[in-house]
């Protein structure tokens, strides 16, 4: 063995006072990202234990639902879907952003995605896991949920493939499978970097398994990126199809406020809107807490904020189109329903939705606002509240004001439903808190590709 050229000096990222201007090299990137994977501190444990405590309360509520029936949640005819399916659609929507950022922006060669897509993908997987719980619980007898899948049985009964609810089973399960694969495949090269630094033999063994023994050989990279391109290509139409199919759960019914061809694009835009807002809410604390402002820069955050603005205008256009069609169209029940949405006893839900999703995001037209992290963090919290209320308004107002006035019903939210809403966030954050500490939350390999490679020819080196 002979040493011919002295190794390049290591750059210490924390040596620079301005977090945005910390230098980034291939080696320092490993240091910066992998420092997240360490024994968690007191703040993490406090957050995690609080999260588990909230989740325990929600599980008690689910136990009551299963043992005593749906009556304890206040679900009565005709509002049988209420908060459960509101939560389902909300979390499926949240889950859409990850694949959008990782697949659609990959195909468009938008390089800013590289700094943010891992968090978005993790959010997707955990979002679908959260969403899938609600229809499973909503069946009332979750131990029979396997009936939803087409499988040979002794009675020769098959699922009704013409039902939108069966389409949902296929769409959501396909989405969960593909987004999980996409997430785990993208992790392979980065987990190999974690494996190489793991000191405990058991941890080294686990990370070796998850990284599939990745070495970064040329034949591995070749097929990795060959496959990654196709994952992106097949996940892109999947993003649009899944939330379209979720929207058809409603649009296929002849209920006023639901039976509309607008629903598919309206739901997809809304899903991306809420998903990107949630990514911003997750990224801002992480980049601040772990001093990663030089990796997830202000420019990256601003581009995400622009996506929120774009999708906000699409959602706002959809809201106005719905009202216009109700006014312009011949359906009296539809016109009455939309008037009821804005002025009936559920008006606070409607106006919360409209303000948070259409009016407040107009602030994003201002560059100064888009580049203010505190401001966009608070705005995105409002957007997520607004998007939850959007689904609530669609589901509850339409169900409790259908064609026949004899069926009209005064809906009030129950304490059990509130426990389910809060519990869904606890369930999601339980996964997310663990993810940040055990897997690389930022794509080391892909961010490295954005750095100028060290060349003797042009003198670019650390």
């Amino acid at each position, binding site marked *: 063995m002979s040493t011919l050229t002295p190794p390049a000096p290591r750059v210490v990222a924390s040596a620079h006072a301005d977090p945005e201007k910390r230098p980034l090299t291939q080696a320092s990137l490993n240091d910066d990202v992998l420092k997240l994977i360490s024994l968690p501190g007191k703040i993490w444990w406090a957050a995690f234990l609080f999260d588990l405590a909230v989740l325990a309360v929600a599980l008690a509520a689910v136990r009551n639902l299963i043992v005593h029936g749906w009556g304890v949640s206040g679900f009565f005819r005709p509002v049988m879907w209420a908060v459960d399916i509101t939560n389902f659609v909300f979390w499926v929507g949240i889950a859409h952003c990850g694949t959008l950022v990782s697949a659609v922006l990959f195909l468009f060669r938008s390089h800013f995605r590289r700094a943010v897509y891992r968090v978005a993908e993790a959010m997707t997987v955990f979002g679908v896991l959260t969403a899938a719980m609600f229809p499973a619980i909503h069946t009332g007898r979750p131990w029979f949920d396997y009936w939803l899948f087409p499988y040979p049985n002794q009675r020769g009964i098959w699922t009704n493939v013409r039902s939108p609810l069966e389409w949902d089973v296929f769409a959501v399960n*396909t989405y969960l499978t593909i987004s999980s694969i996409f997430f785990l495949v993208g992790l392979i090269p980065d987990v190999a970097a974690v494996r190489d630094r793991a000191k405990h*033999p058991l941890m080294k063994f686990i990370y070796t398994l998850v990284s599939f023994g990745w070495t970064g050989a040329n034949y591995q990279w070749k097929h990795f990126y060959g496959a990654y391109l196709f994952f992106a290509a097949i996940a892109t139409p999947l993003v649009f199809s899944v939330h379209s199919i979720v929207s058809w759960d409603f649009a296929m019914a002849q209920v006023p406020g639901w039976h509309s061809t607008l629903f598919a694009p309206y739901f997809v835009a809304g899903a991306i809107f809420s998903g990107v807002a949630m990514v911003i809410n997750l990224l801002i604390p992480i980049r601040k807490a772990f001093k990663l402002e030089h990796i997830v820069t202000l420019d990256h955050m601003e581009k995400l904020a622009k996506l929120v603005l774009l999708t906000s205008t699409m959602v706002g256009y959809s809201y106005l189109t719905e009202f216009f069609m109700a006014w312009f169209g011949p359906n009296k029940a539809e016109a009455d329903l939309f008037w009821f949405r804005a002025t009936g006893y559920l008006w606070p839900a409607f106006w919360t939705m409209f303000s948070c999703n259409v009016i407040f995001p107009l602030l994003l037209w201002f560059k100064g606002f888009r580049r203010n992290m505190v401001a966009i963090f608070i705005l995105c919290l409002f957007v997520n509240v607004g998007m939850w209320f959007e689904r609530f308004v669609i589901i509850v107002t339409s169900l409790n004001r259908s064609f026949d006035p004899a069926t009209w019903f005064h809906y009030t939210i129950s304490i059990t439903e509130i426990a389910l809403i809060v519990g869904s966030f606890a369930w999601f954050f339980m996964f997310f808190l663990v993810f940040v500490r055990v897997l690389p939350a930022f794509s080391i390999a892909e961010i490295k590709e954005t750095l100028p490679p060290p060349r003797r020819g042009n003198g670019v080196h650390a």
Partner: protein
Amino acid sequence: MIGAIQKLLFPPPPKFYGVMGIYYFVDDAAKAVTSLRQAGHKQVRVYSPVPHHEIVHALEEGPSLVRWVTAVGGFLGCTGGFALCFYTIYTWPMVIGGKELYSVPPFTILGYESMILLAGLSNLFGMLALARLPEIRPAAPYDPRFQEDRIGIWVACPPDKTGPIEQTMKGHGAEEVQVHA
């Protein structure tokens, strides 16, 4: 105890014969690959933290075959999804409003989702098979620096033929050359 676990989980690496050159500069590594291939060493392996176009060109790699595996999976998924719909609807007929049992729009949805599901799964398994993952036994000496910022070029050869390879690597700016003989 830990030593025993380590021995069980991480057996000693196999004996390799060849030369490993470690590079920092991408252009040096690409030139070294070109020279080695011109010297007749066609089985050059390159380890790097990210793929570099210059090195891919030097290796003269074609496109990955994984796309054909994905296409076959997608085709099977699509036909399987449609077949499932037709089979189930005629095995358990539910006549609604006196209409025909088959209905193209919903069948298209299930066929489409099945196509994506199987295309994704075959893409995954195709990638793993072609990239020879999981790599249980390393195919060459491995260095953790390959996951950070160094590029490794490995040429397998008998112990008596390492000299010219070592010289070529040194001549192209290798930071370190390891001879495994």
